[in-house]
């Protein structure tokens, strides 16, 4: 910025300076709001406990120590496509555990015509993020810890 001083027409450089200022602001914002990785409930909906001998390892119970909400772009087509693949009850329970109570306990495909429903579904599936806590095997009670948003699903030797 300083190198630009003394030029004949400083207004010419205004866009450059504005651009720099924007970049600096962005860096500040990122330092303030940087949160690292977290786990979406969509990921929770696709994982199950695979410990030897466990016959029904789904759904993993969610234990929350810290959660965050993150804004994710809304994509209605993706949600409609996902709806058929999601276990609703597991999503509903996990969302409740995360403190989000606006989802209906039961859902059917006719609800996908409602924007209001889609927005709630979107929020629960993609915007509620687990940062610290655990996923717990429904059969054995084995804890899979979640640190910095990354669940540790590694099995011990005797569990494989």
């Amino acid at each position: 910025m300083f190198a630009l001083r003394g030029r004949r027409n400083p207004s010419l450089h205004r866009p450059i300076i504005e651009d720099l200022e924007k970049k600096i602001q962005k860096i500040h914002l990122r330092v303030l709001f940087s949160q690292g990785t977290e786990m979406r409930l969509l990921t929770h909906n696709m994982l199950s406990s695979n410990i030897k001998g466990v016959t029904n390892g789904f759904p993993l119970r969610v234990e929350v120590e810290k959660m965050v909400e993150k804004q994710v772009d809304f994509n209605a087509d993706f949600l409609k496509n996902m709806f058929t693949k999601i276990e609703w009850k597991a999503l509903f329970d996990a969302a409740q555990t995360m403190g989000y109570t606006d989802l209906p306990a039961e859902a059917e495909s006719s609800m996908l015509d409602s924007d209001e429903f889609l927005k709630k579904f979107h929020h629960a599936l993609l915007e509620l993020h687990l940062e610290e806590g655990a996923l717990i095997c429904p059969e054995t009670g084995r804890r899979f810890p979640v640190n910095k948003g990354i669940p540790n699903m590694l099995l011990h030797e005797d569990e494989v």
Partner: protein
Amino acid sequence: MKLKQLESFLGDLQQFSNPKVELEQYPTGPHIASRMLYTAENSFGDVSNKVVADFGCGCGTLGVAAALLGAEHVIGLDIDPQSLEIASLNAEDLELDMNFVHCDVKNLGWRGQIVDTVVMNPPFGTRKKGADMDFLAVALKVASQAVYSLHKSSTRDHVRKAALRNFNASSAEVLCELRYDVQQLYKFHKKKEVDIAVDLWRFVPQKDKLGGIIADESLR
């Protein structure tokens, strides 16, 4: 996004600081990674608006590429916590919202076929025999649409047979042959840089007749 742009983003990613030879950790170069995901998106539509899993994601290059090309949900799996830490920093640097799971790809429990596309640069199985085939077997169970993977060209016949015969792929196609330049990462490498011929494969998993949901049992 243009191919060149994608390649340049991937070129800026942080890579392994202490690669682990037992896990065959070789970074996936920006050249190969960008072409792999660019083809998956532009020739087959397997990336944007999809759920993409990166098996053995290492520092996250392929997963990041998927996210940059508009994948709706990207999940990176790796057994090495240090790699996952770098991968999540890489995602954060590009302001990408990715998920990671610390696990052994071979025995992670999945419910159903939510993943559309699996992308991977598996261990080639030179240290631990069959490691690449283990990855492929799981990928073909988990993905509902397609699996993109790199395998040494010298194993082409074996890979095709295994995919079609043992892992029930409905198709297995080599999209192109690439040169994988392995830089001298480990002490046992005698030459400074070695070119390995690798195939970029696209596999299509068998479509399940019951509407895409497979029982948990079949994933064990």
